[in-house]
């Protein structure tokens, strides 16, 4: 077996040193009845060629998003990731390192995390950010828990236009840990901020709203923040498309206390939904209630600047049952990919990329809106918007897939059984979509819808 360096000769030498006859003797503490003496019923070892062939065959059964015109977003976005990103994250010193528990020999990872935290804070317009979470949805769930800790209240209000996976990740915790969770109905024509404001009272710990929302709408959230703050509650803003921050007023400038986001758009492939990278930022005064790892600046014994994991007294390995969160692992390597992509883009690249996404989406919306029976429902958006089709969107998407076009996400898949959404399609357009892709979408929709 190519991954195992011990030879049979080594094994017998080692057993002799230990004073055992066979490896099986080392498993003497296992109840006899539970100890297998032959391998379980699974295939035997295979060489690299055979594994590559078998998995290659399975991969070929999928239609990769890049092989056809694709307009799917809804929480994961196909962007161009520069070759440099994947080359750098595969350096063994990054790829095969552990969580930086020994900072003297983990300065690479730590400095990256410090830079990452800064980049995330700048993008979201917030004071501080942590070293990442599993994904955007789990960031949102942790934000709800944090708001409960900060306000010592137990009631979260969510906009109906919050991505259902984010809503449900919070909802599961609400049900399991016993806090109140009030979600509204989805509204494809725009979030009802006034209705949200009307729900806020003195028991509310936070109101959580998506920006741009699940139907693509961008709305000024300042009035919502003001209402929340007046009631002693927090405003949590969730962003599923972080690339939008290159073009939009960030949550921090609209009064967000906690801003969470999915960071996949920078540096990370779609990966069929995971691994992605959750971003988590907040106001400085809330820092000590934040979940997850934090990297901080310090000096070494000779006064040289260095970085360490810090404020770990919040964390499970120190606080155990009293920790702010049970989280241990983050998305280190995905955060590195995010950070490298951000560094390559820089100020001009991040804003330029956002402008390009927005212009292409704006173009697509105009052309779709001009089609008979198709209405764009999102007047103000970044790179994703909702359209109403003359037919059920799920049927249209299936028929388009049969013609090798991934036309978008039917709203009925995200909100099954909700009235009025059957014909609604979510369409995302990024810099990877060409004019030919858009032509293909228009032509396929014209044929089907």
């Amino acid at each position, binding site marked *: 077996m190519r991954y*195992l360096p*011990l030879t049979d000769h080594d094994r017998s030498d080692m057993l002799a040193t230990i004073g055992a006859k066979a490896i099986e003797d080392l498993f003497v503490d296992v109840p006899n009845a539970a100890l297998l003496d032959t391998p379980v*019923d699974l295939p035997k070892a295979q060489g690299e060629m055979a594994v590559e062939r078998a998995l290659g065959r399975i*991969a070929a059964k999928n239609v990769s998003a890049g092989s056809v015109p694709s307009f799917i977003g809804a929480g994961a976005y196909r962007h161009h990731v520069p070759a440099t990103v994947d080359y750098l994250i595969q350096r063994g010193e990054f790829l095969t390192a552990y969580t930086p528990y020994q900072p003297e020999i983990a300065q690479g990872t730590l400095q990256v995390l410090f830079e990452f935290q800064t980049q995330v804070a700048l993008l979201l317009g917030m004071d501080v950010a942590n070293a990442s979470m599993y994904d955007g*949805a789990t960031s949102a769930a942790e934000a709800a828990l944090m708001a409960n800790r900060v306000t010592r209240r137990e009631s979260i209000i969510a906009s109906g236009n919050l991505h259902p996976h984010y809503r449900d*990740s919070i909802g599961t915790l609400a049900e399991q840990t016993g806090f109140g969770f009030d979600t509204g109905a989805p509204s494809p024509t725009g979030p009802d901020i006034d209705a949200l404001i009307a729900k806020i009272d003195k028991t509310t710990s936070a109101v959580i709203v998506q920006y741009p929302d699940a139907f693509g709408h961008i709305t000024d959230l300042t009035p919502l923040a003001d209402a929340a703050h007046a009631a002693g509650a927090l405003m949590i803003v969730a962003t599923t498309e972080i690339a939008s921050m290159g073009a939009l007023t960030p949550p921090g400038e609209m009064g967000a206390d906690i801003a969470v986001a999915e960071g996949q758009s920078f540096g990370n492939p779609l990966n*069929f939904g995971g*691994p992605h990278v959750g971003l988590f930022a907040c106001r400085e005064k809330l820092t000590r209630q934040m979940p997850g790892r934090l990297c901080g600046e310090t000096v070494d014994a000779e006064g040289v600047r260095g970085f360490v994991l810090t404020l770990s007294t919040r964390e499970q*390995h120190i606080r155990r049952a009293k920790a702010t969160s049970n989280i241990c692992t983050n998305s280190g390597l995905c955060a590195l990919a995010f950070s490298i992509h951000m560094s390559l883009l820089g100020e001009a690249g991040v804003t330029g990329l956002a402008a390009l996404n927005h212009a292409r989406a704006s173009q697509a919306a105009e052309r779709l809106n001009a089609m008979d029976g198709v209405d764009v429902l999102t007047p103000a958006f970044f790179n994703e918007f909702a359209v109403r089709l003359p037919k059920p969107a799920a049927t249209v998407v299936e028929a388009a897939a049969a013609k090798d076009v991934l036309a978008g996400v039917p709203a009925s898949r995200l909100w099954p059984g909700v009235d009025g959404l059957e014909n609604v399609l979510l369409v995302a357009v990024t*810099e990877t979509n060409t004019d030919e892709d858009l032509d293909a979408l228009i032509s396929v929709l014209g044929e089907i819808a």
Partner: protein
Amino acid sequence: MMNNEGRPTRPAAANDASSAPDTFSGARALEQHEPLIFERSNPGTVGVDLPDAPDAPSRLGTLARKGALGLPELSEPQVVRHYTRLSRMNYGIDTGLFPLGSCTMKHNPRLNERMARLPGFADLHPMQPVSTVQGALEVMQQVKHWLSVLTGMPAVALPPGAGAHGELCGMMAIKSAIEARGEGDRRRRVLAPASAHGTNPATAAMLGFTVDEIPENERGRVDLKAFEEKLGPDVAGIMLTNPNTCGVFETDIKAIADAIHAAGGYFYCDGANFNAIVGRVRPGDLGVDAMHINLHKTFSTPHGGGGPGSGPVVFSEALAPFAPLPWVTGDGDSGYDLKEEASGDAAESFGRMKGFHGQMGMFVRALAYMMSHGSDGLMQASGDAVLSANYLKARLEDVMSAPYGDGPCMHEALFDDTFLNGTGVTTLDFAKAMIDEGYHPMTMYFPLVVHGAMLIEPTESESKEALDRFADTLRFLAEQAKAGDTERFIQAPRYAPRRRLDETQAARKPILRWKPEAATAEAAE
């Protein structure tokens, strides 16, 4: 012949490092201090060439960004150099032996990386129609099959994003099952050994359970009598790591499982140490109801400096109906499908806990790893891991102190700091001296049940020569400590990219991000 005349072929004299002159650049050959990316900014440059945006009306209205973000600007070569230099300040498995107990730092095969990057897996959108992602669902079903057979457990939930998330998943299923029985108000107590990973009590507490600590016996196992005395009608279950965090197998595991079941509770097994027994022992045969598997430990998906991980959970029949959404269903004949709603078979599911369908990139890597090893190779791998740990224990126990050293250990060897008594050297000092010797330290001060713990997990990835060299080094250090060479330890590390870092200062006045100098100066006023 090259002109070698008069050229010295050996150094004139060995330079004493302390008297070596400072370099002008501050670098020491390959060791180069690298400023923050924000301090490297080269305004006007860019590392990505983008096409011009087409003319189209703006739909941003009043929400268009007004101010600059404040991001640094660099060209591609500058970015490559920045991260390459940073990488060189890191220790990874590729660098050397990484005996971090409980963390399982084994070799990360590059084939797995290549497989995960196939466009058919990496460039796949999670919301594509299921008709276009049949291969992805097939991979997920295969991973479930391998994990099910290896654990002897009937059901597998793939969504959890890492080990602690898996614990949360398992405990939520237990809580749901108890509630379905109408005992939710009554069963509020979870038992866990004092040696448990911190995530265990944190997870139970998060769900509103009270955590009741079970003491260890003198052999590093659960004290069966103390455990049985804690059982009662208010107990929801036990969270137990096996092999446990002292690196030994819980010999009374069957009795513990039977007793918790008889008391109406469930057995949650923390599967962080599954790598010690994979292919040899099926947790299902031990009475486990739920167990998470860290794919980034047992099945070698890379740790990546702290993630991403993946923590699928295997369930017994009793807990299977409560597994989180989505469920992957179907087979090669009928086609594969995704069940994303709590209805039909999944009506009792406790719901969703993460976006989309799980850590697909990790599933591909783990499957490549399992296929490469096969059932025979996995059995050999766990055997070699246990053999290597026992070999280190045998080579070190006369100079270090093994608190539960009577019988064999499993995949990790636990030492305490008794052998350092009176030397003025602590476990931390000892660990930092290992850094100077070119090793990543073992896990320190965990588990909490032994004083100054040192938990050494060599894994199956080390050759005998590497193990011998490591053992020789630790023997040397133990002898130096006892011989009174304390300077070697308290000054360590001397040769790492940084000397010891001031963690107190970092926590007292946290600096968690870079700020431009102007802003920093303003804040100081």
